[in-house]
């Protein structure tokens, strides 16, 4: 029982992070039918920016809530701006081009960001300061939940709830969903589709920056190829849930996190990735569109 609850807590923590990052893949795919391969790298760039703010402002002492908040805000703003620039530079000129050209551009942008991180911060693994967050932890039903885990779970849930409300219950959110279904029809409604696309490249990277910094804070490390490692997991989560589907990315992220945790807890952590891919294959065989992808057959 203790193991089960413990893996549940671990899984929800990692799953929340996966979900935050997966949302960026799914929202961009939704409006552009494009896999933004640079998304994982953007998220990790957020972790590095947050780390720099933390270590720069630290001066040896305890960071305190204010500095921590500042690190998150700096990461969110910087990565949102990077996301917008990425769209303008790497994707917008290719909007009408061959699909393959956009994929190559996405891969190029990914490498550029990854190498940019290496150039600025170097190839070494950066360790996050040990006293970043309170060491408090609580016992629940024979398991322990740390302050960091609780923070990650609560903030991820709050951000996802906010995004869900925004996308489903505001005018602009409905416009985003409409543009994802049919861009020309959306234009006929008076929707500025360029603005919708721009907004998706703000929201996705902003959430991703939080996810990236969570990864850094949770595992207490950051290295320049981390974008691929965690980006791939989040991308799988997006596919699991049905790429293009926003609640799907949330569900896929949490499920993948839980699955990873239980695989590590009950089988072995070295089997974790193999089990993840088995899950992906199984779901794609049973439901090729992912768990929540395209529930409604559209009549023509």
């Amino acid at each position, binding site marked *: 029982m203790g193991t089960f609850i413990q893996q549940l807590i671990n899984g929800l923590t990692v799953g929340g992070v996966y979900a935050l990052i997966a949302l960026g893949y799914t929202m961009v795919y939704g409006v552009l039918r494009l896999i933004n391969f640079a998304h994982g790298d953007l998220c990790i760039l957020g972790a590095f920016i947050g780390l720099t703010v933390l270590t720069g402002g630290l001066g040896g002492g305890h960071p305190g809530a204010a500095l921590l908040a500042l690190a998150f805000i700096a990461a969110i703003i910087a990565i949102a701006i990077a996301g917008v620039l990425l769209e303008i530079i790497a994707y917008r000129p290719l909007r009408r081009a061959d699909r393959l050209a956009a994929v190559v551009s996405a891969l190029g942008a990914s490498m550029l960001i990854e190498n940019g991180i290496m150039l600025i911060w170097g190839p070494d693994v950066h360790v996050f300061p040990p006293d970043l967050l309170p060491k408090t932890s609580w016992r629940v039903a024979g398991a322990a939940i740390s302050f960091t885990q609780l923070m990650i779970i609560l903030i991820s849930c709050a951000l996802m709830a906010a995004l869900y409300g925004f996308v489903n219950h505001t*005018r602009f959110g*409905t*416009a985003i*969903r*409409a543009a994802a*279904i*049919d861009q*020309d*029809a*959306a*234009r*006929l*409604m*008076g*929707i*500025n*589709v360029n603005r919708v696309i721009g907004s998706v490249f703000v929201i996705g990277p902003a959430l991703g920056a939080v996810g990236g910094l969570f990864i850094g804070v949770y595992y207490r490390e950051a290295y320049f190829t981390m974008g691929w490692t965690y980006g791939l997991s989040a991308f799988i989560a997006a596919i699991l849930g049905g790429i293009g589907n926003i609640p799907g990315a949330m569900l896929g992220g949490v499920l993948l996190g839980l699955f990873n945790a239980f695989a590590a807890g009950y089988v072995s952590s070295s089997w974790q990735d193999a089990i993840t891919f088995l899950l992906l294959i199984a779901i794609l065989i049973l439901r090729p569109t992912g768990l929540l992808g*395209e*529930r*409604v*057959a*559209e*009549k*023509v």
Partner: protein
Amino acid sequence: MSALLSIRGLSVAYGQIEALKNASLEVGQGEVVAILGANGAGKTTLMRAISGLAPKRAGSIHWEGREITRLAADKIVRLGIAQAPEGRRVFGTLTVAENLELGGYTRPAREVRAGLEEVYRLFPRLAERRRQLAGTLSGGEQQMLAIGRALLARPRLLLLDEPSLGLAPLIVQGIFANLKEIAAGGITILLVEQNARAALRLADRGYVLEVGRVVMSDSAAALLASPEIRDAYLGRGAGARG
């Protein structure tokens, strides 16, 4: 006649294919104007060009004397030109109410609420189904939704591209009765139809497109009586679509 919409020498090409060649036409305030033409004549291209969705090679489009030839599609809606496009293009995974609300995207919220009530009055079947996903509506209901959605933009000019497409004769009759009501409410209509008889009965004037060119233009009554039109477009009986 001071034209509300005036198109001069418009050419639209997709790569090598010239879909519209030097087309000119006018729509006056309060008129219902029909565009007739066979498959591939360039009717949809014309509608998309007016709405800012097709690339223009030459010519101009003026709205109330102001040039809008290269204006972005969303800005054209704000000027008062809305379209119910060919194939309806409703947002299938959104509800009926959400589709209608998107139609009023350019209008203030209060106006959208009032507009919704008006559309539900015009199409009671949509009111019953407001929580239903648009993709699960029947073809006729989807067409009502496409028209209602365009009306929520409070257009002064309503562009309709084949509203009878794929619908049973009885449903088509209903839709045309709705259009008559809309026109009586003072909204100018530019209507593309292959159902020439129904279109000309509703319209004041008509144009005939043939392989991208305007080949004929006259009053609806004259077109209905014209032997060329009868042979080419009216030959297959009332109501039914060729």
